[in-house]
């Protein structure tokens, strides 16, 4: 640890080794910290100096790769952008993200989310009748603003850890996956809304959300998944109305 040591903190970390442990348990570690020691730095100090078997994910240490989400004293946060100085002298309880199955120590299972993301069909569908030429589409700054914030999601899953509906209904598509769908629905270049609708317009899609808004509070990137979900609900209701009142569009199911 370079820089001046200002104190030590007790890190109370949840440990779980699936091939040996019956159940997760908490272990205390005393860690020196300085002015700019992040929680991630502290975990790395434990791994380097106290117990190399502690398992957690991390990479960029600048809050853009989305790897290092943990529960810090019960709140989902990125370990790299929260600092030990704000929790000292502790104990700071570090647990794996809530609502996700624990694989080991602080490592949670991301496979259900990856499946949800794929179900949301988060890719751009060009206009089938008028595909853009070789030099692409025009898009004004205002049109970009319509989806820009939704495109800032880093898939860190803090929103899944915060969401009470994810806890109750494990099949819920979830805030980040729905936001990924809405990000493309709101993109002026996209014509894939109808294809995304079946995954959204289901009990375990949009309609599982009870608009608590915990996702938006937890989001470290200002994405506001709750707003995305509300917009999608409104758009879906409008699509119902259109289907009821108008002939089926485009012949697609």
């Amino acid at each position, binding site marked *: 640890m370079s820089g001046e040591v200002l104190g030590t903190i007790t890190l109370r970390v949840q440990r779980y080794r699936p091939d*040996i442990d019956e159940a997760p348990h908490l272990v205390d570690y005393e860690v020196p910290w300085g002015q700019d020691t992040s929680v991630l730095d502290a975990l790395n100090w434990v791994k380097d100096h106290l117990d190399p*078997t502690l398992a957690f994910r991390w990479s960029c240490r600048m*809050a853009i790769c989305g790897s290092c989400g943990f529960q810090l004293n019960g709140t989902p946060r990125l370990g790299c952008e929260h600092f030990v100085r704000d929790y000292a002298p502790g104990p700071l309880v570090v647990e794996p993200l809530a609502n996700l199955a624990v694989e080991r120590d602080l490592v949670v299972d991301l496979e259900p989310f990856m499946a949800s993301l794929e179900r949301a069909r988060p890719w751009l569908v*060009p206009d089938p009748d008028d595909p*853009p030429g070789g030099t692409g589409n025009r898009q004004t700054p205002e049109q970009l603003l319509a989806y820009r914030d939704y495109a800032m999601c880093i898939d860190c899953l803090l929103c899944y850890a915060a969401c009470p509906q994810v806890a109750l209904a494990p099949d819920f598509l979830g805030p980040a996956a729905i936001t990924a769908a809405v990000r493309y629905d709101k993109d002026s270049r996209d014509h894939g809304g109808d294809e995304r609708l079946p995954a959204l317009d289901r009990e375990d899609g949009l309609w599982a959300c009870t608009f608590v808004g915990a996702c938006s509070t937890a989001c470290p990137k200002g994405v506001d998944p709750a707003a995305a979900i509300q917009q999608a609900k409104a758009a879906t209701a409008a699509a119902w109305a259109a289907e009821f009142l108008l002939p089926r569009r485009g012949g697609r199911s």
Partner: protein
Amino acid sequence: MQTVRTDVAVVGGGGAGLRAAIAVAEAHPELDVTVLSKVYPMRSHTVAAEGGAAGVVGADDSLEQHFADTVSGGDWLCDQDVVQYFVEHAAHEMYRLERWGCPWSRTDDGAVDVRRFGGMSRPRTWFAADKTGFHVLHTLFQTSLQHPSITRADECLALELVVRDGRVAGVLAYDQREGYPVLVEAGAVVMATGGAGRLYAQNTNGAIVTGDGMAMAYRAGAPLRDLEFVQYHPTGLPGSGILITEGCRGEGGVLLNADGRRYLQDYGLGPETPVGEPKNKHMELGPRDRLSQAFWHEQRAGRTVATPRGDAVHLDLRHLGRAYLRERLPLICELTEQYLGIDPATAPIPVCPSVHYSMGGIETDVTTATPLPGLFAVGECASSGLHGANRLGSNSLAELVVLGRVAGERAAAAALADPAPSDPRVRRDAADAAARHLARMGRGSEPQVGIREELGRAMDDGVGIFRTREGMERAAAAVRDLKERYADVRVADTCPVYNTDWAAAVELGAMLDVADGLVASALAREESRGSHQRLDGFGERDDERFLAHTRAWWTPDGPRLEHTPVTITTSPPATRAYGAAGAAGAVGAAEGAGAAGTGEVAR
């Protein structure tokens, strides 16, 4: 050990690997592609690229100028056939990303906007605010999800290439989630594993940038090329190395020393440009190697600012104003607030040079083929010949997509032409290699942290911005010593799943192999060129002896080196100049080109 059969195996799920996988799926949907990645693809370090991606658009720019900037930026060590191919295809790939949904920043009329970047004579850097790499990566990742022929093997750590009868037959990996080794037998393998910046202590790179793919290819018999060329980004945060994008200077940010002087004017980059009027290839928009070298001199002269995490200069953005900073550089605003507690609209940012990019890597030609049959390489792990002795900012994101597509198409063609049959000898070799790696679990006495930290210091000190034989020999001795200690490296963790202690040891082994080749390559280059600068009597570029690539082959006794020719097509080596001298030189060169053209006609 599980055995999986695929047509094309892509190792690495960053920008290059994903672009290659999509290219296979588009060109040959009948082929299976398997993308192995040690992290989920959206965690790959492409995500941290900030400033942008170069591609010529608009009437006042030209492919010739992008070519000339890249070749002189690389101090004439670029393979010019590769540069030519690259500049011709860059904008096309940028537009393709546009059609896949990349949220490029726009002008008011809806056209794609471009910004200034260091060493580029025109604004030609496409950007998505200051999160360009993040958006490019997520666009590619999400686009890849629609292709059923792409199978991902996420959180699978590649361990070794398996070679049979002189060609690559597959990749041995370890599935961290399931807890067992996997052999992926493949008709062709694309290595797209990124750089090796973590060799150094002060670096901008994420934890995963450990040179794994370079080391695997090296051990398998493919040469690594030009490893001595390591780019220092002039503006990282002291200590953490967190990247502060060159886009800051493209937008008009200035660098000040402890006296408040824009010191770059004292290093051949002037005359001083007015604050708020950035000028291409002048002052703060000089190339990264020159700016990092200028810092070193200022530090020597005592004109840097002391911070708790080391010496720094000030990157001043205050004159840009809060609203503009929020729009164009939002990530920089977030990062400086979180990590430094400062608002760049009211306070300058302390920055220092930090290792950022490996120009060298697995040798390839313009088709991304390596000298080892069946193996292709692309992105930072490769030495394609594009970047020469110093990469220009925003050429590497563009390289990922331009050559990523080539890698996918070429690997698919190779897998179709020569699909290696399943071979029991390959499975046996892979099983042996897996056993060797797994035997490390629960053994050893040398703590990894000591080896890793000593390696970082040795590289920072011995093969940094300026180099001497004495310093490099110290680094070489340190690496040799660390390799000996590594033979007894401690892996305390014996758990089969998410054994990050063991994975870090595998990565540390890769770092030591690459470091060994890097230091030897640097020692052998007795000249100064681009990012390789010597203070021990070899201070000038020496085209007589070293207009040549360095090629390092792995041997049990250490690297074996040779020097190979650089491909020069239209631009013979000339003086590399920026600022006023560069502007004068550009006029002279244009006149010279005109004269040569006249000569052609006369003949």
